[in-house]
Every structure is written in C-alpha cells, then in structure tokens.
C-alpha cells in the first residue's frame, strides 16, 4: 500500500492508532520465543516419542526434521509477522487479502488451545502442593482420576464442578490476565525473563536429582540405546516431523505475532536459530531427567523400563507422583517437576493468548488493556465453564486431539500451500529475511518450505484423518466426538471465514497505520536505490 493510498483510506481521518508495542531488546524476544516453544510437550511428550521411535537413533530423524521443516517454518512465521507487522489476521491480510482467513483460523485454534491448556497448568499447580503431603498415597492413578478429577464414567456435557480444579484454574487465569494486561514489555517480557530462567534452573536440579537415583542408568540405557532398524520405518520419520511442528510453536500464529513486536532491524534468522536449538536442548534435558526417573521407578517395582514408560497425563500425574513417593527427597523432586510444568505452561499459555489479544486489538482498534481484559476474560470464562467438571477430561482429550490434527497441522499445511504455491510469496519473504538477518535463507529455504514441509504435513494430516475416521476416537460416543472433535474443527474454519467478512474497525490498523506505512515507504526507497 502506497502512502497515497493510506491518505485516502477510510480511516485516515480517524484518531491516530496507538503505537505498536515492541520487545525492548532482542534478548527479551528470544526469551519469550523460547518460553513459548518450551511447553508441556517438551517435558512429557518428547521423551516418550524418542524412546518409542528408535531411542538414540531417533536423534537422526529429529535433527533432519528440525533442520528441514521446523526451522524453515519458524522463519516463514518470522518473515510474515515481521514484514507485515501485525497480528496473524492483519499480517496475512497485508500479505494478500485472500490470506486473511488463515490468520483468523490460527486465532481460533489458539482460543481452543488456551481454554484447555490452562487446566493442565491448574492440575500441575495443585500437584506442586500435593508433593509435600503425597496426597495420592499408594494409588496415584486412582487418586488422580477419582479423588482429584472425579472423572465421570462416560463422556458427556456435565456441569458437575470439581472445586479442587475450579479454584486453582481461577487462580491461573487471574495470574495470566495480569500478565496479559501489563502488555508486551511489562507483562510478557517480564514474565518470561523471570519464569524461563527459573524453569531451567529447576529442571536442571530435577535432572541432577534423578541421575543420582538407583536405576537411573537403566532408564538412560532405554532412552539412548539406538535401534538403527527404526530409521527404515517411515512412521519414525513422520513422528519426528510431527513432533518438531508441535514443539516449535510454528504454524498457528504465535511466532507471527511475536515477531511483529520486533523492532525493524532485527536479526530474525540468527535469533530463530537460538530459539530452535534452545528448545531442542531442553527436550534432550527432559529426556534425560524423565528416563532417569522412570529407570528408578522400574527398579523399585522390579519391572523393566518398558513396563513403566508412558507419556502425557499418565507420565505427569500417575508415574511421577509414584516416583515422588518412592524417591529420597521425593517432595523436592515433586516441587521441581510440577513447578517446571507450571512455569513451562504459563510461558506457553501467554504466547497462545497473545495471538488472540493482538488480533482483537488490530481488528477493533482497541487499546491493550481493553483487548486483554475482554479476550482473556472470554477465554477464561469458557475454560472455567467447560473444563473443571467431571466430564472435563473427556472434553480436554477430544479437543486437544482434534485441534492438533485438524487445527494446527491442517492449518499449517493450508498456510504453506497458499503462501508458497498459490500466492508465490516465498521470494518476497526470503528477500525480507535476507535484508535484515545474518544467516541467509535463499533457494534451499524456499525448496524446503514449498516442498519438504507440505509433504510432511500432507502425510501427517492424511494419516490422522484415516486414523480418526476409521474408529471413533478413544471409543467415546459418536455424538461427543462429532460435536467436540469434528464439529469443533469444522467450526473453526467456518468461523474464520465469518470473521474475515466482518469489517475492520475504522480505527483499526488495517485502515490507518502510519508506523507500518512509513516502514513500507522506506523499504520502497531502499529497493529503488
């Protein structure tokens, strides 16, 4: 858009929009991006995925996936957000009008994720306290599903609230809303600059403690012993690509939003490399800590590591409490583990919420405080209404499975295809990255984004589709999966189109953004020279 177009734009006569917030330094951006990428999945998903897909040999597909898909897609998000300086919908709209629904789709995916992600943080918060008393006694599984969550016998829509989940969840939302209202510098940057170093220190202490437990060596043997035959199995490579996509927080608006808060001349690719490798470093650390602890658990039970290994909720809220009960200084271990989950969860949750807050700010021309309060309050209300109930776990499980497969993965596939093949914007984005960054992304990057990334995503989406269509998810009732699984995933696409057709406010940055306009003018001048 030229400056002449800006002058004649409908919002030109309106009051100047608020200046876009920025990360005050590159270091704070990197910390925040790492805080977003390092989440619950790093701690409770990666160790199992690696173990289940070749152990030490998994390192090879993992690194290949990181270098050929994860990092290229991360840079694609950075390029879109930084060049077009907006929330996901605004950035994609500025890239091309037809791309705007992609941004709204990502916003809606973030809405769903934020609503249930906070619940897991609330559980972790309670388990941090439970570590002192070992509230689960001798039956961690029975305690978690029965006494703590009071899970209903069958999936359904219920409003039988569980106070031991509701109130910690309320506390989590209050803390997160305070961070969101404070903005990028005083809220998100500050929270990450405190919580991320704390998370690393706590997790390193946890790993050290785990390594000194009897049986730790057996756990590490199970984790690192390579099964080279796994490299010939395509599903192992698919698992590596699948994990990398989820691990790096790419493809659903977070990195587009965060990079839009960077100042104009920032080394995008240099910063991104630090983010990607720091995230992977944390995953390796988590693998060591988790498997050392599982080795101890197996020895204490007189079983093999393969008998006790698990992931996700089972690892965090069943296996780890058992380990805490049996290990020397178990309370310390519990506080370190569940505290790490809380900190990793909060830094990721605020990044997910920021995608929605930024979009609402841009669309309606609202200030930070109003947008943060309304958006976070709405997500919190949905979260508090649906999840701290006896049927909340079924809802969480279903929405997580479907939003990952048909929100994040399918959304990333459509985005990459539209940008690379339909709109052919990769040369423009490559030029932007190379103009300001130290590590250049040229033809190889474009080939990876346009070729390798879509192929990996097509494989993932189609295998997920086949698996979910062939049997009803987890044996839940068909109406339940239809409504909260398929229905929710489909509704996100429809709603994204609806939001696209709702006109942007006259005071929004889509109509009048002098900051962006002057940046575009400068770029045009530089290109003309």
């Amino acid at each position, binding site marked *: 858009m030229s400056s002449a177009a800006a002058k004649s734009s409908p919002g030109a006569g309106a009051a100047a929009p*608020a*200046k*876009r*917030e*920025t990360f*005050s*330094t*590159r270091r704070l951006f990197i910390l925040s991006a790492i805080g977003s990428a390092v989440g619950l999945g790093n701690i409770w998903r990666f160790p199992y995925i690696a173990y289940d897909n070749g*152990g*030490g*040999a998994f*390192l090879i597909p993992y*690194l290949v996936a990181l270098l050929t898909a994860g990092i290229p897609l991360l840079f694609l998000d950075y390029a879109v957000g930084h060049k077009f300086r907006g929330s996901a919908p605004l950035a994609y709209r500025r890239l091309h009008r037809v791309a705007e629904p992609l941004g709204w789709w990502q916003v809606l995916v973030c809405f769903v994720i934020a609503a249930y992600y906070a619940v897991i943080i609330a559980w972790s918060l309670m388990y941090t306290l439970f570590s002192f008393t070992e509230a689960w006694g001798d039956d961690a599984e029975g305690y978690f599903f029965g006494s703590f969550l009071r899970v209903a016998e069958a999936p359904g829509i219920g409003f039988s609230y569980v106070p031991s989940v509701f109130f910690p969840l309320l506390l989590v939302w209050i803390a997160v809303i305070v961070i969101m209202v*404070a*903005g*990028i*510098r*005083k809220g998100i940057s500050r929270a990450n600059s405190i919580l991320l170093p704390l998370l690393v220190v706590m997790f390193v202490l946890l790993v050290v403690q785990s390594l000194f437990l009897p049986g730790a*060596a057996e756990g*590490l*043997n199970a*984790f*690192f*012993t*390579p099964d080279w035959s796994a490299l010939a199995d395509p599903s192992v490579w698919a698992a590596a690509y699948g994990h990398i996509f989820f691990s790096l927080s790419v493809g659903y608006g977070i990195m587009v939003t965060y990079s839009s808060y960077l*100042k*104009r*001349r*920032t*080394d995008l690719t*240099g*910063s991104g*490399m*630090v983010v*990607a*490798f*720091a995230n*992977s*470093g944390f995953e*390796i650390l988590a693998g*060591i800590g988790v498997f050392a602890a599982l080795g101890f658990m197996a020895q204490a039970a007189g079983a093999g590591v393969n008998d006790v290994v698990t992931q996700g909720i089972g690892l965090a809220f069943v296996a780890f409490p058992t380990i805490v009960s049996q290990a020397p200084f178990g309370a310390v271990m519990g506080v370190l583990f569940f505290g790490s989950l809380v900190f990793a969860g909060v830094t990721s949750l605020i990044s997910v919420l920021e995608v929605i807050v930024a979009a609402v700010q841009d669309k309606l021309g609202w*200030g*930070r*405080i109003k947008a943060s309060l309304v958006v976070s309050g709405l997500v919190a209300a949905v979260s508090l209404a649906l999840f701290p109930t006896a049927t909340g776990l079924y809802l969480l499980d279903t929405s997580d499975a479907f939003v990952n497969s048909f929100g994040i993965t399918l959304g990333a596939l459509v985005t990459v295809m539209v940008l690379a093949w339909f709109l052919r914007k990769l040369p423009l984005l490559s030029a932007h990255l190379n103009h300001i960054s*130290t*590590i250049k992304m040229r033809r190889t990057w474009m080939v990876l984004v346009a070729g390798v990334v879509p192929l990996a995503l097509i494989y993932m989406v189609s295998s997920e589709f086949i698996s979910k269509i062939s049997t009803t998810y987890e044996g839940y009732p068909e109406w339940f999966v239809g409504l909260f699984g398929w229905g929710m995933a489909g509704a996100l696409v429809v709603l994204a189109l609806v939001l696209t057709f709702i006109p942007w406010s006259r005071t929004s940055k889509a109509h009048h953004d002098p900051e962006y306009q002057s940046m575009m003018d400068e770029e045009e001048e530089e290109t003309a020279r």
Partner: protein
Amino acid sequence: MTPIAITMMIIAILTVGGGLALALLNLKRHPEDEGALPEEHAPEL
C-alpha cells in the same frame, strides 16, 4: 550405562548444544543495533 547409550547421549548433547553455542556465537558477533532500539514505552502502557 552401556557404551553405546553413553555414546549416543554425548552425541545428542554435543549436536544440540553445539548448535546452540554456534547460534549464540553468531548473535554475539552481530550485536543488536542499539540505535534502532525503541526510545519510549508504547503510549497505551
């Protein structure tokens, strides 16, 4: 631990840690342009 497990652990740590060290070294060699830092807080704060 078995020798092969130790070897793979060291390779994993060195590969990922080396990548991180190189990325940090690259950033150190290209310090932030202080002149381009924002001068004031965003007005809405």
